[in-house]
């Protein structure tokens, strides 16, 4: 299963490293990353593969959200299908 991770918040040192470390611990493979500053906010979007993920979707989602909260970031993970459905025919 593929999913999209979005990270939005104030730009600080080590955001990418921190998020990637959490994902790697769970066996989540990062397929693509794009990062930009949008309206002054750090915005990172990652396409990840959950095939070898060691925890449940819920678990991973909660862990990322908690990590984000600690650092003042909004981090969410959503299955890729919803974006395909809405934006591709």
């Amino acid at each position, binding site marked *: 299963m593929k999913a999209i991770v979005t990270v939005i918040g104030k730009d600080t040192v080590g955001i990418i490293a921190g998020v990637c470390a959490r994902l790697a611990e769970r066996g989540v493979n990062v397929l693509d990353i794009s990062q930009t500053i949008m309206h002054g906010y750090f915005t990172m979007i990652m396409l990840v593969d959950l095939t070898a993920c060691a925890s449940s979707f819920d678990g991973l989602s909660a862990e990322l959200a908690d990590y984000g909260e600690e650092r003042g970031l909004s981090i*969410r993970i959503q*299955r890729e299908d919803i974006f395909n459905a809405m934006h591709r025919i």
Partner: protein
Amino acid sequence: MINTGEIMQTIEMIDQQHLDVRTITMGISLRDCASEDIKRCCTKIYDKICRSAGRLVRTGEEIEAEFGIPIVNKRISVTPVAMVGESCTARDFSPLAVALDRAAHEVGVNFLGGFSALVHKGFTSGDRRLIDSIPQALAETELVCSSVNVGTTRAGINMDAVRRMGLVIKETAELTRESAGFGCAKLVVFCNAVEDNPFMAGAFHGVGEPECVINVGVSGPGVVSHALRSAKGASFDEVAELIKKTAFRITRMGQLVAQEASARLGVPFGVVDLSLAPTPAVGDSVADILELMGLESVGAAGTTAALALLNDAVKKGGVMASSHVGGLSGAFIPVSEDAGMIRAAGSGKLTIEKLEAMTCVCSVGLDMIAVPGDTSADTLSGIIADEAAIGMINNKTTAVRLIPAPGKKVGDVVDFGGLLGSAPVMPVNPCSQAEFIARGGRIPAPLHSLRN
């Protein structure tokens, strides 16, 4: 890969524009639950619902988490209970509603619809007993919703049923007096009721439906109004295009959720109902959309035309996004559930007469409107007859969900809480129609019912 702008657009729709799936509704046939003994019938109903819908709420929550899209309600619709209870020897059908309510609580759904009867051409014994039991059933239960279909384009209008429903609404309001007549918020009187509607309070599982089915209702007035903000001064051609594109996206999401729910529950997918269903939350209003088209307030001259465009564009945009579109599909205009409607009704800019005109072009009818507690049953029947006539002649679904709030006068506000919101009590025309309603009989089906 989907690009950043598209991903952020989706997230913004969910976070800031109230995009959600309004409901996953599981339709369950109760046709095999009939019994002469009402207790046995209740047991069969309870067992079947718990068996069929045991995993519904959990599955909905899983989908919600994985896709990151809120699914506000998980609901159940059942075979019109008048048919299920028909074989019972009991006169009072309210125990069947209690069994439905227990089952709904057990499986954790928000509402259960189908304490219903279809009497557009006349009553069976089960229909009569069900309708007589509605006030008690709604007073005694929390989650059960009731509906009665009193007319169709094919059959005409059953004016005996129209008269009876005026009385039933009054009685329901009286029995739920302590909650300002809240029972009436769970009771809909239809013309041309549809069999696969996932929205409450009018959902029931029609007789042509399969054993079990998943129907999904999408929403998203906030997303449409957000899109319209960028189109100030644009022509109606552009406005219609913009609404269509937005409706397409919303519906695609509904279709995805419907297919996923259907696959996970092992239950066939029925329809996506592509409705714009407002909530009392600021920014989630159908009235806002109409006002963004250039009206000072909903209710102003031009409102009906604006709503007609909206209703049509929503359908056109949504229809390609789903393999099966059904239900009510269009824009809902429930007064108490829409912050903009509440504002306009409270300030007298929106009247019942204007709302009636709007129901000619919206997806349903006069919905969630509080009227003075001393409104007579005949007047309620008169309003039902007018609405049914609009539905019958225009080949569309119309409905009446009025709350004659006991003890309340024009200017008072009735608060129902949650998604049902609050309703300013609106004035109704006080002239009598007692003789008209007392006639009874049937209004014949219109000429265009003869289509074969």
